């Protein structure tokens, strides 16, 4: 015979255990999620305002961190201090502007650096290529892409799908 009372007690106990587990998970998760959101917001702030004179104290304040705690937590997630990350974002954006044929000096100020010498040195350190050389190489590649785009496309796509026949490019 089935012992209904026993089954019922077991079910309630199991149910309570699940509730307790969820509660513990929430308690453990909640502060972590808020911490993450604040750090992600700080990162997005740098992504958006990299060209301004960013004061890390302001970001730390905005994220409700002490400066040192902020730097440590940021590095934990992104593997770089906020300052190192800011430099990375500036260099990346500089390379995008250089591709658009904007003069090196203009690019330097546009991404938030105020010395061309230090900009060039940092750029070279990160990309192992000076801004001027990088720009030259990129413009050359773009030109080639315009003149003979098929060089950049695996021929299986271009050939089999009749791009060759339909276009006047060679």
């Amino acid at each position, binding site marked *: 015979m089935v012992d209904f009372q026993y089954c019922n007690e077991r079910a309630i106990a199991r149910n309570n255990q699940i509730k307790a587990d969820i509660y513990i998970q929430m308690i453990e998760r909640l502060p*972590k*999620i808020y911490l*993450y*959101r604040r*750090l*992600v*917001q700080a*990162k*997005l702030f740098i992504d958006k305002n990299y060209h301004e004179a960013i004061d890390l104290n302001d970001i730390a304040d905005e994220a409700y961190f002490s400066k040192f705690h902020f730097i440590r937590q940021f590095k934990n*997630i*992104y*593997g770089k201090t906020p300052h190192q990350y800011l430099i990375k974002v500036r260099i990346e954006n500089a390379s995008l502007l250089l591709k658009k044929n904007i003069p090196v000096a203009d690019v330097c100020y546009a991404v938030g650096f105020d010395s061309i010498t230090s900009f060039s040195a940092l750029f070279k350190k990160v990309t192992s290529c000076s801004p001027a050389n990088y720009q030259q190489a990129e413009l050359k590649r773009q030109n080639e*892409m*315009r003149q003979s*785009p098929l060089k*950049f*496309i*695996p021929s299986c*796509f271009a050939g089999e*799908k009749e*791009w060759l026949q*339909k*276009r*006047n*490019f060679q």
Partner: protein
Amino acid sequence: MVYQNKTQMITKMNHVSVFVLNQDSAYDFYVNKLGFKVNTDAAMGPGMRWLTVCPPEQPELEISLMAISEGMMFDSLAAQQMRELVQRGTFGFGVFECDDLIATYEELKAKGVEFTKTPTKEFYGFEALFKDDSGNWFSLGEKKS
């Protein structure tokens, strides 16, 4: 004879296609939201554009964002069918990897990326699912340390 450590078989994959409804919008999604780098953006004439992007730390894998339009790889019926299937979320094109899933999830969510599964611990790893702007879905997993 000098022994060379070379295998005379396929060694790598360097191009993969993802079929998208609109290349401009896909560019915005993959570059501005996912943070991928443009590798090649070559205009081939009206309606034909060869657009490839690479995951930031994998410059040797080009993801070709192929427009689903008549004349490229599809005839008009196939294009129409393909668009419907993509929109309906039929295709999952792969698994991306990140170092910290919660941070990446929070960032992509803040940028408006649609997730169909929030970060979840599975027996095979920590994973979330998201959709691109066309409807293709991808898994996003945390690198196992």
